[in-house]
C-alpha cells in the first residue's frame, strides 16, 4: 500500500526550509566518505548535484549516455534564469517570485517546494558568478537583467542567448574538478536501463556500455535520477534527440509513483515545421517577445508580403486581448492564442502554420545594432534554418512541445516513493504545477542540485552508517542484469520486421500530439487510449533492428527508449482523461470560460495525480496528493 507523505514541514511557509534544514539528520563530515551515491544524468541538475555531493565528501558515481557531461540537453537553454535578487529595484522579492511561480503554474504545484525554490534562487546566481559564469553585465560592471513571460519584474539573468550553455559549463567544470580529485567517477557512454531495489529500497542501477554493449551493474547507498523530461514522446519537440523517459519509467515500474504525466509545456516561439522529414523543432528564445510584436493578417486570404500589409490589416491578437501583458503573457496563453488564429485560417508562411514575430518596431525605435546586440545569435540561427532574414522580414513562429512538468513524484526531500531513490530537475514533478514560467527550469535544476538534495539526502543516509551497499553479486543485481540483457538482445534476434524505430516513434508522436497536445477532449483521449496499445503491439512485433547488440548500435539504443515511451504515452492519456479541468498548458475543451479561456476546477482537481504501476497489462492506480494553498489565494488567472 503506497502512502503519499509529502513531508512538508510545519510552520509558516517562509520558515519551513530553514527549520527543516535544522531538524533533518546530518552525516558527520568524516563519515560522508563512507557513503556511495549514484547520480544518473549530467545536465544542470545532475552535474550540480554530483559536484556538490563530492565536495561534501561523498563518493559519487555519475552516469550519462553522452560522451561528455557538457553535452547534456541543459546546454540548449537560451533565455535565462530567474532569481529574486531585486537588483532592478522594481519590487521583486522572494515572496513575489514564489507568488508568480505558484500562480504561473496554475495552482498545481506544492507551495512549500516553490517557496524554497524562490529562496535559494538568490544563492544560485552568487554560486554561478563565483564559478565564472559570464552573465551579461552593464557598463558599470553590475549584472544585467531582463524580463520574461508571465512576470512584471526584471529578474532574469542571462548569458547572451546561451544561458543554459554557460550554466552547464559552470556545473560541468565543477564536476570536472571533482573528477580530477577522484571523488567522482564518471561513466560516460553509459545508458541506464534499470533501477535495482532490494527489500523495497533503491540499491543500484543497471547500465549498458554504449561502446561495447556490455551490461553492468553498480550499487550505492542512494540513487539520484537527474534524467530530464519526456517531451520526446511527441517525437517533434524542442528537446535534444536523445532525451527520453527510460530511467524514470523503469523507476516507475519498480515502485516509484509517476506524477502528473499529462502536464507538458508548449513553448510559443518555435520555428514551424517545414516538411515531413523534420526531426526536431527549434526554439527561438522567449526573450524575443520582449521586443517582437506578434501578429497575423486580419484577412484569411491575405496574399501580400508582411511589409506590404498596413497596420490596420494586422491583427495584434495578444496586445488586443491582453492589454496589460500584451506579448508577454505566459506561455500557455500565448500558445493557445497562436493555435486559435492558425486554426481560424490566419496562419502565415508556405504551410500557413505560423504567426509573425515582428521586430520592425524595435529596429525603428532602437536601431538594428541594438537589436543585434540583444538577439544576434538567435537571428543568425533563424536565418540558417529558414533561409529568411529576420532583420527585414518578420520571423515565423508556432508553438511546440518544450518541457514537462510531470515526472516522478517526490516528497519535500526530493525522494520518490522508493526509499533511497531521488529525482531532481526536470525528472521530478514538484515545482512548476501545470505550467512553467520562463527561466524557471534552469533555476529548479540548479536549486535541486546545488542547494536542496545535498542537504536532504543526509536524512536518508545518516541512519545507514556502517551499512555496506548491497553487493552487485546479490541476486537482485544478477537478475536485473540478465533481464536488461535479454530485453536488449530480443530486438536484434527478431527476424524480418517492417519499419525502423524512427517510424514507430513518429507514429506515436502523431497520436500524442493530436490527442494529448495543446487541446484535448474526452473522445480524443479515448481514441488515444485505443490507438496507443495497438501501435505498441505492432511495434513490438514488427520493429526492425539491424546490427549487433555487442558494440555501438544507435537503433538498439533507441528501441528500448521508444518501447518505454509507448507505455508511458498510455499513462499520459489516462492522466489527461481523468483531469476534467483546463489547467496550464493542458486545455480540456470541455472546461472553458465563456470567453474561451482555460477554466480550472479547484473544487475537484486541486491535487497531484500520482500513478502506481500495477504490472505490465494492468492500468496504473491513481493516488491523490491534495494541494493546499495557504499563502497564495486561489484565483482564476487573468492576464487581461
Amino acid at each position, binding site marked *: 500500500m503506497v502512502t503519499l507523505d509529502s513531508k512538508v514541514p510545519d510552520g509558516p511557509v517562509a520558515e519551513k526550509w530553514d527549520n527543516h534544514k535544522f531538524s533533518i539528520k546530518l552525516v558527520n563530515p568524516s563519515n560522508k566518505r563512507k557513503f556511495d551515491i549514484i547520480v544518473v544524468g549530467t545536465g544542470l541538475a545532475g552535474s*550540480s548535484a554530483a*559536484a*556538490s555531493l563530492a*565536495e561534501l565528501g561523498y563518493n559519487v558515481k555519475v552516469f550519462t549516455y*553522452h*560522451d*561528455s*557531461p557538457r*553535452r547534456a*540537453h541543459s*546546454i*540548449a537553454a537560451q533565455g535565462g534564469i530567474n532569481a529574486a535578487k531585486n537588483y532592478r529595484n522594481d519590487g521583486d522579492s522572494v515572496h513575489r517570485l514564489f507568488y508568480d511561480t505558484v500562480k504561473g503554474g496554475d495552482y498545481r504545484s506544492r507551495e512549500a517546494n516553490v517557496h524554497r525554490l524562490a529562496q535559494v534562487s538568490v*544563492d544560485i546566481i*552568487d*554560486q554561478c*558568478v*563565483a*564559478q*565564472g559564469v*559570464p*552573465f*551579461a*553585465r552593464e*557598463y*558599470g*560592471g553590475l549584472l544585467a537583467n531582463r524580463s520574461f513571460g508571465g512576470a512584471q519584474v526584471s529578474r532574469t539573468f542571462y*548569458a*547572451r542567448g*546561451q544561458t543554459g*550553455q*554557460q550554466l552547464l559549463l559552470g556545473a560541468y*567544470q565543477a564536476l*570536472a574538478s571533482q*573528477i*580530477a580529485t577522484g571523488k567522482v567517477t*564518471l561513466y*560516460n557512454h553509459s545508458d541506464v536501463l534499470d533501477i535495482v531495489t532490494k527489500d523495497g529500497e533503491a540499491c543500484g542501477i543497471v547500465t549498458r556500455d554504449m*561502446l561495447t554493449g556490455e551490461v553492468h551493474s553498480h550499487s550505492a547507498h542512494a540513487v539520484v535520477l537527474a534524467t530530464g523530461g519526456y517531451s520526446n514522446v511527441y517525437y517533434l519537440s524542442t528537446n*535534444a*534527440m536523445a532525451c527520453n523517459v527510460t530511467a524514470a519509467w523503469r523507476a516507475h515500474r519498480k515502485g516509484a509513483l509517476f506524477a502528473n504525466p499529462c502536464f507538458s509545456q508548449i513553448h510559443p516561439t518555435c520555428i514551424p515545421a*517545414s*516538411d515531413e522529414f*523534420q*526531426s*526536431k523543432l*527549434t*526554439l527561438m528564445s522567449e526573450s524575443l517577445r520582449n521586443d517582437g510584436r506578434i501578429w497575423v493578417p486580419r484577412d484569411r486570404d491575405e496574399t501580400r508580403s508582411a511589409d506590404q500589409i498596413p497596420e490596420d490589416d494586422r491583427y495584434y491578437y495578444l496586445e488586443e486581448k491582453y492589454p496589460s501583458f500584451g506579448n508577454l503573457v505566459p506561455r500557455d496563453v500565448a500558445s493557445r492564442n497562436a493555435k486559435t488564429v492558425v486554426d481560424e485560417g490566419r496562419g502565415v508562411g508556405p504551410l500557413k502554420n505560423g504567426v509573425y514575430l515582428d521586430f520592425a518596431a524595435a529596429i525603428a525605435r532602437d536601431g538594428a545594432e541594438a537589436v543585434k546586440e540583444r538577439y544576434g545569435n538567435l537571428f543568425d*540561427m533563424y536565418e*540558417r*534554418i*529558414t*533561409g529568411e532574414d529576420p532583420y527585414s522580414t518578420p520571423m515565423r513562429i508556432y508553438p511546440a512541445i518544450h518541457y514537462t512538468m510531470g515526472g516522478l513524484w517526490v516528497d519535500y526531500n526530493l525522494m520518490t516513493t522508493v526509499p533511497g531513490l531521488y529525482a531532481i530537475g526536470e525528472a521530478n514533478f514538484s515545482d512548476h504545477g501545470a505550467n512553467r514560467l520562463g527561466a524557471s527550469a534552469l533555476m529548479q535544476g540548479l536549486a535541486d542540485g546545488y542547494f536542496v538534495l545535498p542537504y536532504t539526502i543526509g536524512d536518508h543516509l545518516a541512519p545507514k552508517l556502517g551499512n555496506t551497499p548491497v553487493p552487485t553479486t546479490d541476486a537482485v543485481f544478477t537478475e536485473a542484469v540478465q533481464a536488461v540483457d535479454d530485453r536488449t538482445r530480443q530486438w536484434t534476434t527478431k527476424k524480418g520486421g517492417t519499419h*525502423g524505430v*524512427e*517510424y514507430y516513434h513518429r507514429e506515436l508522436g502523431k497520436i500524442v500530439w493530436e490527442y494529448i497536445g495543446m487541446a484535448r477532449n474526452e473522445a480524443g483521449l479515448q481514441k488515444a487510449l485505443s490507438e496507443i496499445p495497438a501501435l505498441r503491439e505492432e511495434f513490438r512485433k514488427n520493429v*526492425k533492428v*539491424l546490427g549487433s547488440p555487442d*558494440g*555501438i548500435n*544507435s537503433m538498439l539504443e533507441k528501441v528500448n527508449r521508444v518501447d518505454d515511451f509507448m507505455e508511458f504515452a498510455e499513462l499520459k492519456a489516462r492522466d489527461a482523461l481523468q483531469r476534467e479541468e483546463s489547467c496550464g498548458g493542458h486545455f480540456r475543451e470541455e472546461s472553458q470560460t465563456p470567453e474561451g479561456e482555460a477554466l480550472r476546477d479547484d473544487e475537484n482537481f486541486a491535487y497531484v495525480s500520482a500513478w502506481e504501476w500495477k504490472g505490465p497489462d494492468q492500468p496504473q492506480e491513481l493516488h491523490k496528493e491534495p494541494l493546499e494553498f495557504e499563502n497564495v489565494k486561489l484565483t482564476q488567472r487573468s492576464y487581461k
Partner: protein
Amino acid sequence: MSKMLNLKLKIWRQDGPHSQGAFLEVDANDIPEDASFLEMLDVVNERLIDDDVEPITFGHDCREGICGSCGVMINGQAHGPEKATATCQLHMRKFNDGDEIVVEPWKAEAFPVLKDLMVDRRAFDRIIEAGGYISAPTGTPQDANATLIPKEVADTAMDAAACIGCGACVAACPNSAAQLFTSAKLAHLNVLPQGQSERWKRTENMVETMEDFFGSCTNHGECHDACPKEISLDFIAFMNRDYVKAKVKNRSLAAQ
C-alpha cells in the same frame, strides 16, 4: 513544398577503432532543400534500413548547434561549406542538385573513430579536468554584484566561453592541434576577476595536458575558419603569453 535535390554521397563506414574503413556510395534522391544535413542523413538511413543495411552512425543530439555532438568533414571541410555553422545547422539549400558530397569523420590521432562518422573526443574532458574551472565549492559565496566586472570583460569571457567543444578546430588543423579549444577555456576563466588566483596553475596544467594528447600549433588559422562559433585566434596569442608568464610565476611562487 520545398525544392528537391538529388545527390551522390560518399560516406565513410568503419566498424570500430581497429577496423578498416571504406567509402559507401549511395544516391540520396528527393532530399528537400529545407532539410538539415543531419536530416538528410536520417533520410538516407531510413532507406538503408529498408534495404536491410545497417544505418550510418554519426554523433548528434541537440540539432541546434550548441551541444557540440555533431561534426563531420564535408568535402574536406569541417562542418561543411557554410561559415560559423555546425553540421546540424547546415541546410541542404547550400548544395546544388546533382552534387557529389564526401562525408568523413573528424581525422586526428587524439580523436579515434568509434564507428562510421562518430569519433571519441574525450581528450577534451581531460584538458578541462586539468584546471578548466574556478574552484568555488557549493556554499554561500558573496553577493554576485560584489565583484564588478566591466561589460567588456564579461563580453570577452563570453566570446571565449561560447566554444561548444565539437572538435572542428582539431579536425581542421593540419597538425591536429587543440590550441583554439584550450585557449578559449583559458581566456574565459583567465580574464575574469574570479579566475585570478588559479590563473597560472590553470594555464600551465591545461597547456601541458593538451600537449600530451594533441599536435602542436603552427599558426595556420584553419581552426578559426572551421569553428562554428568563430572563436578568435587572439585567444591563442593570449594563451601563449599566459603560458610564458605562468612558467615564470609558478617557479617564483614555488620559490625556486
